[in-house]
């Protein structure tokens, strides 16, 4: 695939995501992100082993991905 096309597609996706966020619930998403960052920070500085840290981080990312969907406005055409 043409790198220019890929770049354009990426730029378009980012612009769309930003527009969806602007029309969604940016405040609540920010609170969610803050909570995720705080949990990540706590996890990284917990002193637990790499496996437990990786697992907990995977959990935080999954939680963020699943719950943040509602904070974005629907994409065009929906």
């Amino acid at each position, binding site marked *: 695939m043409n790198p220019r096309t890929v770049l354009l597609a990426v730029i378009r996706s980012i612009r769309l995501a930003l527009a969806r966020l602007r*029309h969604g619930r940016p405040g609540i998403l920010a609170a969610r992100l803050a909570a995720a960052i705080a949990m990540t920070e706590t996890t990284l500085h917990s002193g637990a*082993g790499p*496996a*437990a840290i990786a*697992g907990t981080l995977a959990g935080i990312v999954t939680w963020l991905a699943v719950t943040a969907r509602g904070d*974005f406005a629907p994409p065009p055409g*929906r």
Partner: protein
Amino acid sequence: VSRLLIWFLVFPRLIRWVLGLAAWTGIVIAAIAVAPVTTVAVTGLFIAWWRGWPPVRLRRAAAWSLPMTAAWMLVTAVTTRSAFAVIAAPFTSWLASWHAFSYGATSAAFVLAAPVAVPAGLLVASWAWQLRIYRIETGLAGATATAPVAFDHRQWNRQARTATRTNTAPGLVPLTNRGGQIVIGGTIRAVGHPWRPVLAIPAGAMGRHQVVIGSSGSGKTNLMIRTWAGWYTATRRAAHHGAPRPLLVVLDCKGGPDARAKAARTTRLLAAAGASDVRVWPDASPVSLWSLPPRELAVTLFQLLDTAREGPAAYYADVTQAVVILAITAPPGPPTGSAGFLGRLDPVWLERAWASDWTRLPAVRAAAKHLPDIALRYRTLMDRLGPGFDGTATLNDADAWYLILEGTKEPSVAQAQALAITELLACTATSMDTEPRSILLACDDYSAVSGKVPLWQLYERGRSLGIGVQVSAQSWHGLGASDDERYRIAATADGGIWLMRTPHPEPLAQLAGTRRVVETATKITDGTWGDEGTSRIQHAFVADPGIARRLVTGQAAYIRSGGCTWVHIARPKPSPIPAAAAPVSRPHQSRKAA
């Protein structure tokens, strides 16, 4: 006697009490031993109770937390390169967690335990919550005999609150979801249907027949507008992949200022959903009745008049029909407007038009003496119908039509208009010369105009023409004139029944069917609830009519396939981001070409 009393009364109770104490002690010890799992389970249980979640939601949360377990095991496998270490990891992590906790490193203890404790705890919570609900519902638990009722009432309130909160998340309630289903709103409760946080119905369900029953102020309009916009969006998206373009025809049968406000709202919403041409009839855009094929036009014009079907007066009905056929099918071709049609109801014009046809001329001469009366009746009818049918547009010209019939102010006119519109729609659906369209006919309060075309007839006609028909009524009795008609309509609503607040929901609840429940009766001894009782299987309504009666504005039951989902309808709002793709339009592709 005292020995017997001790042996048969005190001793069994003592044994039971000791066994119970031992069991609870064991449970407490186990709960302390697996404290991280217990903590997650108790938290999950509390959240489920507080937010009215069903147990399945906890199970799904447990499934969603499995990636953390997978990542944890994967990194363990990579770092230790030992299968035994991976198998033993839950135990070693548990030990390490306790060790960290005893040293005061709480966060390390949590992180070490989380990959196993979170999914396991949520699963335990789901099981415990299911058990609690079962015990309460069947009367096995609860301090009083009314405990199941109070529990259900409180849970309903919590579930309704959660559903309302779900609707505030814009990403959860778009008009359609990723799979092209029409999103309705946050689920309150599902009985006999699989539970989803948000109710979404297949767009195909709108292509069949739907019934909406709800009294004034129950949120019926909001629901209908959401389903129209959702259907339009889903069908428009399907049209990008070669399916027919959508054509939405809304009949607002009450009329009045409210209808104008609803039309404006629907127009705005559909425009935002991608409809480039939404027309409001008769205010903004007249339609051409005269575009009907001559035979159909003649039949429709005849049906618009109120004529006797039996007795001596039926003679005049036959004469009128013969005259209308002669006027419409005359050799110069059908008229293009009401003025042209009225001009033909003249003996001289008709005789000239049919002068070359010796077989028809005697009929023209025989009817000549009745022509002034017939012309007078049609002149009156056309005046009452107004200029709404003298336009040049056909229904196929637009993406959506919002047709306002003054069913409250002028019922007889609105009935005639409804008849003409259904004929135009039938012509649009069957015409071989125009582009095939996917059609949804939505009739709001159709009972106000059902005089000439009864609802069941509209339903059956829609079915035979492949048109989806959605009808709404304010009550069960508004669906038809007799119970036979009402059941004929409701029982064939294979796209589903929407039941909103109404004082008489029983017939629709009966159509939803029953489910088997356990009913427990407890024996009363000396004025208190004893510890003996009986249980039996009973049938209970899937769609509880008691709930339907006390629904608040915006709440509805979606009844389909023997199940019922209670839902809070989200206010319809299309994506605020403009679509980059141009609207689909294939105006020149006829059905023949297709």
